[in-house]
């Protein structure tokens, strides 16, 4: 989740009241951001993905200022009509990146902090709400370098212009191959032979969305009029992002102006910064929160969260006006949560309801508990190992043939390419890593493995297994056989028999499988020296593994 850094002085200025860093650190988390720390005049907070409007110092301060009661209520934004500001969208962009929205900010009080804040807001929005620029991307330009009408079109790969941070004109192809931003975002335009381009009436390139702006239209400390564009694949997101960026920048001053967007078959005037409205049922809110609230309370709390409430005649419902930058309000439950935040999570009295139900444990879990107690009684140490493994550990080192199993498609490390199908390899790994510790070593694990199974809805089933291993200079077949016999006797398995077992991990003639009614419930034996060598072990190991699910079935039958 995105972390933004905030200049303390700027923040205090925008909040509009004097605040100490301790007060901010205490209060901000209660608005719903995670405090990360303060250093050298800047603090950093983690902003949750539902509040992209707080990804800038201006937006965060706006929300906080309402929250602490300095500037409660709805922010209204006046938008001047587009006049001659027109952008034509050509049909060619529609299969690639069909949507665009624009706004201008006139007479903007430019300063260094404003420039830095704009950059941070763009960067953080690009990662989050814009889904790494695929869904939407933002461009900000010096409006005075641009002549309307603007055209949103596509150009072939050998079209040239001078991108930001580059000292000459290069082709679009080269931008994707050589420019750092081109390399980073080329994946969005993969497989295309024409790329999106914004041009003004003189043919000056504004940008190549969603990759890079041109040097010709760059915003500098001398810029006083700004043009903002957002292009993307999802109209709702494009317009939301435009509102967030425009409203954030406008917190610093200047006048917002609209742009007329002419699509091939429709016309849109952006930005639309009018509030939305939503009906809130007061009873719904109070019942869910478990507190009593009057219409007046609701109004006060919602104003602290930047809303306006238009009282209806009756007291059951109110109409709530939602500011244009709040993109996360989908359902009245979202308003209820904001009431709770304004009320203060710390002010709710926790209460246990009297709901009498009977606790009930899963059968296999209950049985596993019994088995672990028994193993501990055998003076064994439980280990807990990972379900994720790899074929080298599960098969090659164990000298057994590979079998089909659950494979991960995208592991970050070679360690985790499959889900384990048996436990013994996990125990061997534990022993191999404990050679500096005192012997004898007696370990066990009762936990899950995952087996492919076409009969289930997910194509695999989880199975509970038990495995144990004993490692010291004198261990061998007889020790583990004794353990197995005692184990079976104590859990009440009768009528089992042992049959010779050929399995690569055991020494031939020193391994057996355990059968109940011809059904193999487990096996045990003395680990083959080749396997010990594969794990780098210098001590003999004897081991057993059982299917807990199978054992449980037979135990229940008795």
């Amino acid at each position, binding site marked *: 989740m995105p972390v933004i850094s905030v200049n303390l002085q700027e923040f205090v200025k925008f909040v509009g009241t004097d605040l100490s860093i301790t007060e901010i650190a205490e209060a901000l*988390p*209660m608005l719903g951001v995670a405090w990360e720390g303060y250093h050298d005049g800047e603090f950093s907070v983690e902003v949750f*993905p539902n509040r992209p409007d707080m990804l800038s110092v201006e937006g965060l301060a706006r929300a906080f200022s309402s929250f602490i009661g300095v500037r409660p209520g709805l922010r209204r934004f006046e938008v001047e009509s587009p006049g001659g500001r027109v952008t034509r969208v050509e049909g060619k962009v529609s299969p690639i990146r069909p949507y665009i929205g624009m706004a201008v900010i006139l007479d903007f009080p430019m300063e260094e902090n404003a420039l830095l804040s704009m950059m941070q807001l763009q960067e953080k929005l690009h990662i989050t709400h814009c889904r790494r620029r695929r869904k939407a991307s933002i461009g900000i330009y010096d409006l005075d370098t641009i002549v309307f009408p603007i055209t949103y079109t596509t150009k072939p790969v050998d079209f040239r212009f001078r991108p930001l941070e580059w000292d000459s004109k290069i082709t679009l192809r080269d931008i994707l191959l050589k420019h750092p931003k081109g390399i980073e975002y080329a994946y969005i335009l993969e497989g295309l032979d024409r790329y999106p381009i914004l041009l003004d009436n003189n043919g000056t390139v504004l940008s190549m969305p969603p990759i890079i702006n041109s040097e010709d239209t760059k915003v500098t400390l001398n810029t006083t009029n700004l043009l903002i564009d957002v292009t993307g694949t999802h109209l709702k997101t494009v317009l939301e992002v435009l509102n967030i960026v425009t409203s954030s920048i406008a917190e610093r001053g200047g006048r917002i102006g609209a742009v007329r967007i002419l699509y091939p078959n429709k016309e849109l005037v952006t930005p639309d910064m009018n509030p939305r409205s939503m009906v809130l049922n007061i009873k719904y809110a109070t019942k869910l929160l478990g507190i009593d609230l009057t219409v007046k309370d609701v109004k006060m709390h919602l104003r602290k969260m930047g809303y306006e409430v238009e009282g209806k005649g009756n007291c059951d419902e109110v109409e709530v006006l939602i500011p244009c930058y709040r993109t996360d309000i989908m359902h009245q439950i979202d308003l209820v949560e904001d009431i709770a935040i304004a009320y203060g999570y710390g002010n709710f009295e926790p209460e246990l309801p009297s709901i009498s139900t009977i606790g009930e444990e899963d059968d296999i879990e209950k049985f596993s508990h019994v088995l672990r107690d028994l193993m501990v009684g055998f003076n064994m140490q439980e280990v807990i190992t990972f379900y994720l493994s790899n074929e080298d550990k599960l098969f090659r080192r164990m000298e057994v043939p590979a079998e089909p199993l659950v494979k991960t498609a995208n592991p970050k490390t070679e360690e985790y390419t499959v889900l384990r199908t048996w436990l013994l390899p996990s125990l061997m790994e534990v022993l191999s890593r404990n050679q500096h510790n005192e012997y004898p070593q007696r370990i066990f694990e009762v936990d899950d493995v995952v087996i492919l199974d076409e009969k289930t809805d997910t194509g695999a089933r989880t199975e509970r297994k038990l495995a144990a291993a004993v490692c010291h200079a004198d261990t061998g077949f007889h020790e583990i056989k004794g353990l197995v016999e005692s184990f079976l006797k104590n859990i009440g398995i009768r009528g089992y028999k042992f049959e010779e077992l050929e399995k690569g991990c055991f020494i031939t003639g020193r391994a057996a499988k355990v059968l109940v009614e011809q059904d193999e419930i487990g096996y045990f034996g003395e680990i083959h020296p080749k396997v010990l060598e594969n794990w780098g072990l210098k001590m003999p190991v004897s081991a057993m593994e059982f299917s807990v699910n199978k054992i449980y079935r037979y135990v229940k039958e008795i």
Partner: protein
Amino acid sequence: MGDSTTFEIAQKIGVKRDAIEVASLWAAEKGLVTIHTESRMLAELTKEGWDTLNNGLPERRLQHILEKGPINISKLKKRLERLDIAIGWARRRGWIIIEGDSVQLTEKGFKEISIELPEEQIIKNAATAPVPITKENKRVIDELVRRKILRLHTEKKKILSLTEKGREVATKVGVSVEVSKLTPELIVSGKWRDVVLTPYDISVKAPTIYPGKKHFMRQVIDYIRRIWLDMGFKEMKGPILDVAFWVFDALYQPQDHPARDLADTFYAETPSHGELPSPEIVDAVRMTHEDGWTTGSTGWGYKWDENEARKCVLRTHTTSLSARTLAKLRDDIENGNIPAKYFSVGRVFRNETLTWKNLAEFYQTDGIVVGNVSFRHLLGYLKEFYNKLGIRKCRFRPAYFPYTEMSVEIEVFDERKGVWVELGGAGIFRPEVVKPLLGKDIPVLAWGPGLERTVMNRYNIEDIRILYMNDLEILRSARLWIG
């Protein structure tokens, strides 16, 4: 009674060696014993020596690599640390020749692959007990000391032998009536009445005993299971490998949500896709994502893709079980099955590389309460749960999860660092989650905190990897969890 060292005597009768030495001086003065001192040099493994024991001598490792054929020096550098030492020794032993950049085994080098060197014999012996220096092994040991594999230390021994006079006195005073070990014989014969059982020095070190024990994480898991069971929660169980539908879609996570990225979630190659539940549920989920369906929500506003929902993933949270449980409750919601309370404790997965603060798999405990419940009740359950875990100073702060609203993060105050630490998330399931699954919009309290953070706070563990390292020394000595 023959010659004994002071050390042997101290061990035999269980008193401190110092005491024996003082006593022996006194006895020598009286002419009862003679004392002579011997010292000898012992060689023991250094840290590097232990490494060598596990990995082999550098030249041996080089020999094994070259066994398959000649290799370029630059390639060797990547495969073997301290290559220069390995090459030096291998050359000295006549195992290798270097031609240009290529290193290869000589005939001798091949022949001696499985012949144990005297050095290796000594390293092995030193692993069990320090090796005394003899005429035969001195050369080899000196060499290994130079190679920093062994280090020397001196052991001093005082050997006592009874004089003629001493022997006489011993017989007269009847030393033999003092016995150290109470035997079955002494008990049965009643002879124990005639002897004095030697008083022991109770400060003498006793042998270390390791109990059979559950892993400390298991103790916490069991304890947490008890908390839920005591509070009347029923256990939920379900697949580790699940379809994305239950892990994400049913929990109202849009299909382009960053949590669903390959970078965060393990997708399965085999099996790649699974089956979805009944069309009734799937359609309700689809429509809720697209336009809110009848939940009163706007929905996410995109085209929902069934194929994306069928992808198999390693569950990223056990909240998938809560979603499955709600869908199961749907059929008999009218039969008095509500209110209902469920819990689970299980393994969850994130596509991470292991670091001191990240694991690829860890534990989560989920709970849901379905019924006429409120936000205050949610806080009530959480407070109770953390109280039972011994955490008193905690606070609730607003949080965000796509499937809950209100969303809460429980934080505990870390006194040492003076900061609030996140313990786990909770909330009330959104109507967009509940209605498609349950068929009705009923409040469902839900939580899913991880366990590791709580355990690490309690045991002051900074590196999360220690929890599942299974180091027997740590497991054997870890204090039991009492709650």
